[in-house]
């Protein structure tokens, strides 16, 4: 058992898989010599060499196109898009090419690509380098979507994403990079599509993703002081979505809160809420409530960004008012 940061877990997970599969390669901007602008790929160039760890120009379409073309001809690829906001400049490759090729070709084409990208706010980078965009890709049929909240999940879900034969978008949260956690020795392999109950409770269910998971846990501790027993679920994987774990929990607690960092409209929690209302409505003791970033671009100033992102206090206040 070793204690790793979320940041070092990224390289740890990639290295584990590159040792296992000598065909696996990675490309992206500043990932090789520089070790990544977030230092998430440090050491990989030294171990695996420049033919497997490739620096690219600032050409996001060329990056994802190269990844797709290599993957569909027998070479699995990890592609890094430096900031998840930049997905917008190569969205065609994700949304129309990787996602649709298997279906459009009657199953002839397979695209084993993992697109890693730094997601989310809290770094005071302003609106074009901070947004949580998991909902941008969750809505595309043909893409799998993962967003780990702990170092061990980074390693295990990275392995699962790389071993998955379908395109997976892997969101690494910028504000979690310094978080430390235990990672078992030896090979760590997790499974896509499995949510985790990270805190058991009986009065309400709080479903969260990535940076919102530790905030939901801290909120649950404070709610316990008020006599509210909150169950917290880390969704981990948006596609496939483990609705069973969520539905089982809501059936037990009777109340659902989603905590989403994405802007309000069409956030992942809207889909979760819809499923819960549709399928376990008669088990609910109150309305389903979504706690999200407001529907605004993220501001740069520390004070404003902190107001925008769902905070522990906002979660506590919302749950205690609505569940109390």
């Amino acid at each position, binding site marked *: 058992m070793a204690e790793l940061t979320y940041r070092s877990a990224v390289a740890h997970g990639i290295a584990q898989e590159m040792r296992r599969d000598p065909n696996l390669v990675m490309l992206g901007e500043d990932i090789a010599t520089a070790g990544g602008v977030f230092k998430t790929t440090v050491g990989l160039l030294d171990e695996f060499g420049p033919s497997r760890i490739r620096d690219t120009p600032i050409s996001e379409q*060329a990056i994802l*196109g190269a990844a797709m*073309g*290599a993957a569909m001809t027998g070479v699995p690829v990890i592609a890094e898009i430096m900031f998840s906001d930049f997905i917008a400049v190569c969205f065609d490759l994700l949304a129309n*090419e990787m996602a649709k090729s298997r*279906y459009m070709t*009657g199953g002839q084409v397979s695209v084993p690509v993992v697109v890693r990208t730094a997601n989310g706010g809290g770094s005071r980078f302003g609106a074009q380098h901070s947004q949580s965009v998991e909902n941008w890709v969750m809505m595309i*049929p043909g893409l799998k979507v993962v967003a780990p909240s702990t170092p061990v999940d980074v390693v295990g879900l990275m392995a699962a994403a790389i071993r998955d034969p379908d395109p997976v978008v892997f969101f690494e949260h910028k504000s979690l990079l310094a978080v430390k956690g235990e990672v078992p020795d030896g090979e760590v392999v997790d499974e896509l599509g499995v949510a985790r109950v990270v805190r058991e409770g009986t009065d309400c269910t709080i479903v969260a993703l990535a940076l919102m998971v530790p905030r939901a846990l801290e909120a649950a501790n404070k709610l316990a002081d008020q006599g509210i027993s909150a169950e917290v679920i880390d969704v981990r994987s948006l596609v496939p979505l483990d609705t069973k774990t969520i539905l089982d929990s809501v059936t037990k607690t009777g109340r659902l809160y989603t905590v989403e960092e994405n802007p309000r409209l069409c956030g992942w929690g809207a889909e979760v809420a819809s499923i819960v209302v549709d399928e376990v409505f008669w088990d609910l003791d109150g309305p389903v409530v979504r706690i999200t970033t407001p529907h605004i671009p993220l501001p740069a100033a520390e004070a404003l960004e902190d107001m925008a992102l769902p905070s522990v206090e906002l979660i506590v206040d919302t749950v205690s008012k609505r569940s109390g």
Partner: protein
Amino acid sequence: MNSSQTDQGLYDYAVREPRLPAPENRDNDRLDIPIEQRLEIYETQQLLRQFEKRAYDLFMQNLVKGTSHLSLGMEAVATGFGQAMRFGDYSFATYRGHAHTLARGAEPGPVLAELLGRENGILKGKGGSMHLTSVEHGMMGSYAIIGAHLTIANGAAWSAQMRGSGQVAVCFFGDGTTNIGAFHEALNLAVVWALPVVFVCENNLYMEYTPIDLITAVANPAADRAGAYGLESIIVDGNDADAVYQVAKTVVERARHGGGPALVEAQTYREQGHSRADPAKYRPPAEVEAWKARDPIPMYHERLLRLGVPEGDLSSIQQDVARRVDEATEFAKGGREPGAEHLMTDVWADGGSAWRN
């Protein structure tokens, strides 16, 4: 907008100079291409031509739904490159991909069945005319959003380079593609990584309905950009299959042996509109007539006669191809409409489409 307004302005052929084809180069009769191979080139061009005409007829009978983009008049490009490529090489095409799919050896029956949306189509009816793919023939797909497939072709070439397989990726696109960002991203990366990829611009003079020269900074949309990426500027007569083959063989073999990428501009002409919806009235009649006089197939026919091939041999090839296209038509029409069992399959590698438990 009434029709007299739509005929005004930039697209008014009365004020546009027709862009005429280069004269035929009869020296190409003497290119070192064996007669057996030239007969194959003739047969492939016949197949592409007769297939496209049949596809057109089937639109008119309302058997082909949606849209379709024909390569009538442009067959020499797909044929010449198809001849120069080896089994295992990769082709990438645009939505105008019927010819490129057939030129790699895909059977016309399943291709036509795909256009008809039948279960026996090459994509089981799930892709249609604009996404023809036959991985077993190295035809890695037809991509219908301009630009992306140049970057994807790079990836296939990168994979071949890493595997040391000696495969080459050839990527076909139109003149309009040279004005989108992905074109430039793809060329830069291909050169920087010395990828075994050949980019082939089929310059048919029109970006959909708009003359390419009115919207492009340079006269030759691909060739004039080659220098920006340190590549040789290559223009070839896209209506002469032998000329195309000669250039194709050179650049494909150079790429195969580590010589890096190439960008070829094949100058040709779309004998019809952009898609089935387009009557192509924006083209000066003199231009259309001049290019029809340079139709690649009668031109090639004449060349073979000059080289001593009996007319009877050529007409028997034409008839064989006609029979194949008739059989393909029967195959396609005989296919059933895809059933509901296909709707939810092949989103994921497990064959299904489930996104939740």
